[in-house]
């Protein structure tokens, strides 16, 4: 049992060393350039080595049930120091942040973008009730709790939110380390993107803000302060935004869009449920 944890620890040290030695890699695509930080390599390496096809022999010992369980049970505690660090980033800038406090509150409404962008697309490609669960929000714990309470997780709405939860858990970090620099290249201000980083998931916020820092290092304290403040606000207001704004907006849009098209329930719907 103890030996198991030692293996896990040594493995973690090796992965960290590898990720840090790869360092930050920048790739350019025309006008856009993205940078992958060691944190992205760390999650990529551990996920790829954990793929069932690759997880053979000694790797099976590393990814033992006990070790995977340990990691998911205590991940939140391993993350706590990061949160403590964010507090120290907000404190010195609190006055400045409160000065534009209304902007922070206003941009919380931007989280409705999940419904506005996501729902039309979901309906267009033939999702129906799954779309309710998959577009209500980022599909983190808040949405999961709401949907499971209202529809249960076995329902189609529940499947929608669960799928989004799984996808977000697996690819959220990578996604946000890619989108942040692209938005910067489009011409958004780094302060605005820092605020937008507070999407409600700590790892996605960290991926986005860390990538922004990589691109604009002289703004490090502002980026961290703004991102953390916005994240905290999302943790406080997120539930209200969802229940009082996202839910009614989603219902309105859903009825409007499904009525005008007058499409019968598509069979694809049934297939997706399998």
């Amino acid at each position: 049992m103890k030996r198991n944890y030692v293996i896990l620890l040594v493995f973690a040290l090796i992965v960290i060393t590898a990720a840090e030695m790869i360092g930050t890699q920048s790739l350019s695509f025309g006008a856009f350039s993205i940078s992958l930080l060691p944190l992205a390599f760390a999650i990529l390496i551990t996920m790829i080595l954990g793929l069932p096809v690759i997880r053979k022999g000694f790797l099976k010992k590393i990814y033992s049930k006990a070790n995977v369980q340990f990691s998911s049970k205590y991940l939140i505690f391993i993350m706590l120091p990061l949160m403590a660090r964010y507090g120290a980033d907000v404190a010195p800038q609190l006055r400045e942040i409160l000065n534009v406090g209304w902007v922070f509150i206003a941009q919380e409404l931007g989280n409705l973008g999940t419904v506005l962008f996501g729902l039309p697309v979901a309906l267009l490609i033939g999702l129906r009730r799954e779309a309710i669960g998959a577009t209500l929000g980022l599909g983190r714990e808040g949405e999961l709790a709401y949907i499971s309470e209202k529809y249960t997780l076995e329902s189609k709405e529940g499947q929608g939110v669960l799928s989004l939860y799984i996808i977000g858990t697996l690819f959220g970090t990578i996604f946000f380390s890619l989108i942040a620099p692209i938005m910067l290249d489009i011409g958004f201000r780094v302060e605005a993107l820092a605020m937008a980083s507070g999407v409600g998931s700590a790892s996605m916020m960290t991926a986005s803000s860390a990538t922004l820092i990589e691109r604009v290092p002289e703004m490090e304290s502002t980026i961290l302060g703004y991102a953390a403040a916005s994240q905290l606000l999302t943790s406080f207001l997120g539930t209200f935004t969802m229940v009082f704004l996202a839910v009614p907006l989603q219902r309105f849009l859903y009825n409007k869009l499904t009525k005008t098209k007058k499409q019968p329930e598509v069979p694809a719907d049934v297939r997706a449920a399998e």
Partner: protein
Amino acid sequence: MSVQLNKYFKYGLVILLSMALILFTQQIKLLKDPASTPVEWMTIMGLLTLWLFSMIGVLLSDLMKKTPIKILQEFPMLGWVAVTSLFLCMFFDFFVEAIGYVDFLAITTPILTFAGISVVDRLVDLRKTSWKVGIVAVFVFTGTYVGSALLSELGLFLANK
């Protein structure tokens, strides 16, 4: 009571492990790039500060679960740690200074290492999700980010910042 103590002892150890990993990562960063954040005595002080704030946040989160106010009960533990740190850092500059000696990115690599390990058994669940939700996810994630960025941009413009 002893079960309680035992629980916090365990949490304390895990957070200590996290500290050790951060220190290790910062040292490796230094080997790769000698110009990155150095490892000094203040780094240790900074790490101890992070540990202390984390523990206070954990206790606070458990205490708040006993209050009758729903929003306080449901506020996540991660949030309580950030609030604790924010509050104490406002009153004691020393904390801000010490934490500044801990490299930000060195905190993130160990976390994502364990995040990766923790999700591997869910990789098979991907088969249960439809590719359609995969497409929707891209728009959902982009939607919240772009939505907030547009409003922030507009807000900062109006605030003349």
